[in-house]
């Protein structure tokens, strides 16, 4: 019988620790498929950020370096500058990239570092138990916004992809979701494109993935998928925001 669906070579055969319905596992798989597609597993370095994404080294069959909270893109840049022949990526959560590490993220993009940054945006701090994130939507209740996020106190949810797209150094910027099969297929393409950009030395590539966090949202998996569609996507529109056709220095 023909095998039509299998685990990517880039993933280790262990179950994810992620909560039921969490999209993190899907993001891992999309990254693994892209690495397999370009046959770069043996020269790829993953940088684990702090948050639910930190256990990357338990799942990816590649060399992995753990970064301090928020600093993953700076760490990834350091790896890349030392070894330009390697492929370097990181998966950063919304707390890691949108809050504590926003400076490192912006300057990494602005320098046009030839790395790939996957931004896992679920609008909440997952690992620490459901606190407000920079991308928490207005009105959304979290353990530190118990009355709902109020812009007079907490400011507004940050649109990272739009911000990254304004920077001359970024070569590819997209926002995708994985809450239904149609969106998933587009997400797969975008993640692959991001790695292609790096393989072709086009510069900084960035894919924001809207993700669910059923546990901390207090929703079932299906309700969480619906919330991505009905509440997140209207504020965080999907699409390719920027795509460089030729490296600037060519």
């Amino acid at each position, binding site marked *: 019988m023909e095998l039509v669906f299998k685990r990517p070579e880039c993933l280790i055969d262990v179950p994810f620790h992620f909560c039921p319905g969490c999209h993190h596992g899907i993001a891992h798989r999309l990254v693994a498929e892209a690495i397999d597609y370009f046959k770069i597993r043996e020269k790829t370095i993953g940088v684990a950020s702090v948050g639910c994404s930190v256990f990357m080294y338990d799942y990816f069959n590649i060399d992995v370096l753990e970064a301090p909270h928020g600093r993953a893109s700076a*760490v990834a840049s*350091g790896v890349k500058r*030392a070894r330009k022949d390697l492929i370097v990526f990181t998966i950063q959560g919304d707390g890691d990239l949108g809050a504590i590490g926003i400076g490192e993220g912006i300057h990494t993009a602005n320098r046009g570092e030839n790395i790939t940054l996957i931004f896992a945006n679920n609008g909440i701090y997952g690992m620490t138990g459901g606190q407000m994130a920079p991308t928490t939507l207005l009105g959304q209740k979290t353990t530190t916004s118990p009355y709902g996020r109020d812009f007079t106190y907490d400011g507004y949810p940050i649109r990272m992809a739009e911000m990254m797209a304004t920077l001359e150094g970024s070569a590819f910027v997209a926002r995708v979701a994985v809450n239904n099969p149609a969106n998933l297929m587009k997400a797969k393409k975008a993640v692959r494109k991001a790695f292609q950009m790096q393989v072709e030395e086009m510069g900084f590539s960035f894919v924001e993935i809207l993700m669910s966090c059923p546990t901390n949202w207090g929703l079932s998996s299906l309700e969480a998928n619906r919330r991505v569609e009905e509440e997140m996507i209207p504020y965080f529109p999907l699409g390719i925001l920027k795509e460089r056709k030729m490296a600037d220095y060519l």
Partner: protein
Amino acid sequence: MDQNLEKILVRGNEAVAMGAIDAGCRLFFGYPITPQNEIPEYLSKHLPPLGGEFIQAESEIASINLLLGASATGARAMSSSSSPGISLMQEGISYMAGSELPAVIVNISRSGPGLGGISASQGDYFQATRGGGHGDYRMIVLAPSTVQEMYDLTCLAFDLSDKYRNPAMILGDALIGQMKEPLIRRKPQQMDLPPKDWKLTGAKGRKPNKIKSLYLQEGELTEHNWKLYQKYEKMKEEEVRFETVNTEDARFVIAAFGSMARVSKTAMELAREEGMKVGLFRPITLFPYPEKALYDISTRVKQFLTVELNTGQMVEDVRLSVGRDAQVFFYGKPPGALPPPEEILEEIKKYY
């Protein structure tokens, strides 16, 4: 090895940069801050032609994390800063110690606390020797007192940090960094170092390498901390470096490091001219601290004067090291004016 044994006249900061290049460092990450700017300026000019990389990062936080990333590939890399910037790097240094990543960090210290000032100070002694960041770790700390040592100890710092897979710091100050002295750029013989089989190069033909400092399994972190402790103990056994002058016949010894050791040496000479048997003890490694050597001296010498450019930091290590029957006096100057040798001589006379 091509050796240029000609003397050149350079600043201490330039000597650090030259030492880094001669030790094989090809990556530098930093952020401008006085009084260490000659280091990044020199390297921004000289690294690219050597195929190296220089990044002026957006902050010292980014610098230390770029350093962490580069070091994980097995490359020799360096960052330099001065006191406030070094404070920002403490998080990254703690992660590097926890992840067992080598790198050299240069602190051409200025005065604090806070923005303080740009004059020389030794107020960062505690921060450098007690860990500085969170967690139970130590850093190798080398304290040069001449421009030549700025070069020599930078080279040594790369070897020691590789040998122990631990960050190493050069703790200079505005005085040593800014002054010019003759330097002989003599490349030291590299130590015999273990292969970096831990480095990240892509998992080709081997199992993936992981570099991390998170240990959540039962007992893992305890074991990891004991492993680090064993390294620090080994450093204490093998890497202690110090200089003694006239301690053999001395009945009074000045203990001072870095720039203050220079002034203290002159004070010692003045005391000798007046017939007082004064010696000098100068720790070169601030961690590991030369405890045993200082204890041995205290079996013969019962009076010590610690001289520092602060209100009393290394004096604690002197007190911890000497025998119980030894007296330890302290003469310190907070940042501002450097004490002239005559001032230290007066202190000696008070107790001698």
